[in-house]
């Protein structure tokens, strides 16, 4: 008779610059399942971890925004491929985290995979719907193109630990932004597992950074950071969101406001989030011989 198998548990760490460090603070917090079981001690990120993540994101920006749109599209499609292969793992993780039924969890995962596919396809089309040739009243060639805003701080939706996160993250990176994510505070494990998918797909290190820990500690640091160009407060609490919007004024951050807790992430996403963190650049040149 063989001995009972003792399973190998995963250490859930941060994801910064393509690596998986523990919090430099050495802290962690307990994450429980919906029915109160111990799931993991998750890294409790510090303000220094936020700063490190922002620095990693900034460093990754030039090559990611400079990549061809076709290339970015393929990289995002690769994420969908790898996520599809780990479908069962994520269904289990969402059931544990959110207490969802198997069917509901499967729908979340399928929708999250499909969302990567949706945005992968947008990467090389967004300039064609958001850009323009402008018929100015004079002898000038004039065109406008969308460019990424830069480093975006994303407060992931709370309670939709995978689909909500993908719904805010994928459109931001599809157009060439880089991201520092504050994961769903109570259900952070799917976010960390998604980071593992990103690390093994072709997403360059630093393009997506994932922090776990209390919103109240991390969001104000991100909101006041002068090297963060945009903030998506989708999952922030009312109080934290208002304070973050005000702190964001320090360097005129572009702000996407919080959404209601009961927001249904399964709906057709449209293009609103795709167009949220872009800057329009207009170029003029005289026409003449």
């Amino acid at each position: 008779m063989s001995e009972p198998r003792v399973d190998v548990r995963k250490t859930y760490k941060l994801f910064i610059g393509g690596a998986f460090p523990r919090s430099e603070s050495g802290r962690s917090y307990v994450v429980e399942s919906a029915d109160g079981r111990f799931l993991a001690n998750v890294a409790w990120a510090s303000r220094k971890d936020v700063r490190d993540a922002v620095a990693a994101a900034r460093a990754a920006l030039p090559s990611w925004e400079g990549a061809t749109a076709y290339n970015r599209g393929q990289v995002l499609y690769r994420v969908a491929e790898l996520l599809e292969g780990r479908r069962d793992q994520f269904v289990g993780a969402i059931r544990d985290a959110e207490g969802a039924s198997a069917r509901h969890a499967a729908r979340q995962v399928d929708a999250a995979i499909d969302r990567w596919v949706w945005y992968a396809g947008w990467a090389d089309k967004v300039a064609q719907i958001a850009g323009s040739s402008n018929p100015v009243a004079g002898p000038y060639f004039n065109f406008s193109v969308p460019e990424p805003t830069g480093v975006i701080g994303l407060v992931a939706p709370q309670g939709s630990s995978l689909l909500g996160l993908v719904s805010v993250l994928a459109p931001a990176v599809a157009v060439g932004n880089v991201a520092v994510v504050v994961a769903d505070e109570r259900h952070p494990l799917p976010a960390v597992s998604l980071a593992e998918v990103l690390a093994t797909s072709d997403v360059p290190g630093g393009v997506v950074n994932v922090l776990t820990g209390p919103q109240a500690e991390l969001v104000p640091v991100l909101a006041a950071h002068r090297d963060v160009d945009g903030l998506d407060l989708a999952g922030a609490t009312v109080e934290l969101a208002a304070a973050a919007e005000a702190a964001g004024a320090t360097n005129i951050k572009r702000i996407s406001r919080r959404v209601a807790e009961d927001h249904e992430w399964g709906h057709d996403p449209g293009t609103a989030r795709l167009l949220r963190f872009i800057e329009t650049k207009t170029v003029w040149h005289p026409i003449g011989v």
Partner: protein
Amino acid sequence: MSALEDAPTSPERFEYAPAPESRAMLHLRSSYGLFIGGAFTDPIDGGALKTVSPSSEEVLAEVTLAGERDVDAAVTAARAAYEGGWGRLTGRQRAKYLFRIARLIQERSRELAVVETLDNGKPIRESRDVDVPLAAAHFFYYAGWADKLDHAGFGPAPRPLGVAGQVIPWNFPLLMAAWKLAPALAAGNTCVLKPAETTPLSALVLAEIIQQAELPAGAVNIVTGDGTTGAALVAHGGVDKVAFTGSTEVGRRIQETVAGTHKHLTLELGGKAANIVFADAALDQAVEGIVNGIFFNQGHVCCAGSRLLVEESVHETVVGLLKRRLSTLRLGDPMDKNTDIGAINSAEQLARIVALADSGEDEGAERWSPPCVLPERGWWFPPTVFTQVAPSLRIAREEIFGPVLSVLTFRTPDEAVERANNTTYGLSAGVWTEKGSRILAMADRLEAGVVWANTFNRFDPTSPFGGYKESGFGREGGRHGLAAYLDV
């Protein structure tokens, strides 16, 4: 660099007889109320302001300094119009009203140009040829969008936001009013516009035009006043959308005010644009562009090319040509059709320009102005060029908003990009080179919302305008400009 110490021999300077524009078309009242609900009304808790011509210090008229209750009355009128008159119109009906406004501006163009020049101090040539025609063109362009919003790329039947509170600056008073009002109205919003404290008059003439166009009452309300009036408007709970053009400092306060509310926000803020001249550029054309870039409208332009970056090998040549060209500029009576440089808009702005220019000298840069007699009355500052400017100097970092150019050099395209982007601003940039691939590479790498290549300071209603970084967010002009006033 001894060649820099003296300007090359001044070119022959033609003498012109004075050619002042006539004031015959001007019909200013001695005092103005607030334009609320389609009529000029007396203030409830407001006071009075005198508006003064910056070139003569002549009092032009008395206008109202709207108080909080006045702002509330204007927002209430705008809300009623949103729920009633203007808000119930079809796109086609709105379009026709906006076309009327465009035509009325054209019909009253002389009067508007004269009012603008008297109140602002800008040369009549600029108000006549730039401000007024562009204002009309803006209304004409957005008029055509009003019944085509379904086709603007924001999905079917995009919704307006509601009541827009719009705060505009003094550098292009009428044009900024047009930039704000035309897209807001086209999209179906109603407006409360707050003109700048020192330049309220052209907006009040525009109010008369809106009366002549017979817009439904309350679609546009105009509340004159100072910073407290603007602050009251931005903070008003009945405003759904705030649009501001002005300094980054005030923009930051507005963003803080709007934080945590339901209000939508767009900001068009300051700039410190680099104008980059490569050695292979057509230098005579580049010099014209440099002059237009920084001395147009006395440099009171948020997208002014205030940092000239010249490739080192042509630095002396370019500075020499620039000094020669500046020696031909005519500074003086803005109403004179031959005037190139008008008056500084206010004593306060002049003090700021003087202080920053003095800091340039104190910090070791070399200051030069052409021989230039300043009129005795009014507020004036001569066109000024600083050479030997280090990137760390205040005159290379801070927005001066005056006729002051800082000249820096670079050796490689990479260095030009690095220096150009080394600012918290990102509104505009200029590139001068005959090499097409270099233009596109530079345009790609410059962090600026508008890049002028082999030209500078061009504007058009079809062309989106707005900043990167701390120069603000949102675009004005073009299809993009509609997004600022639609729930998208």
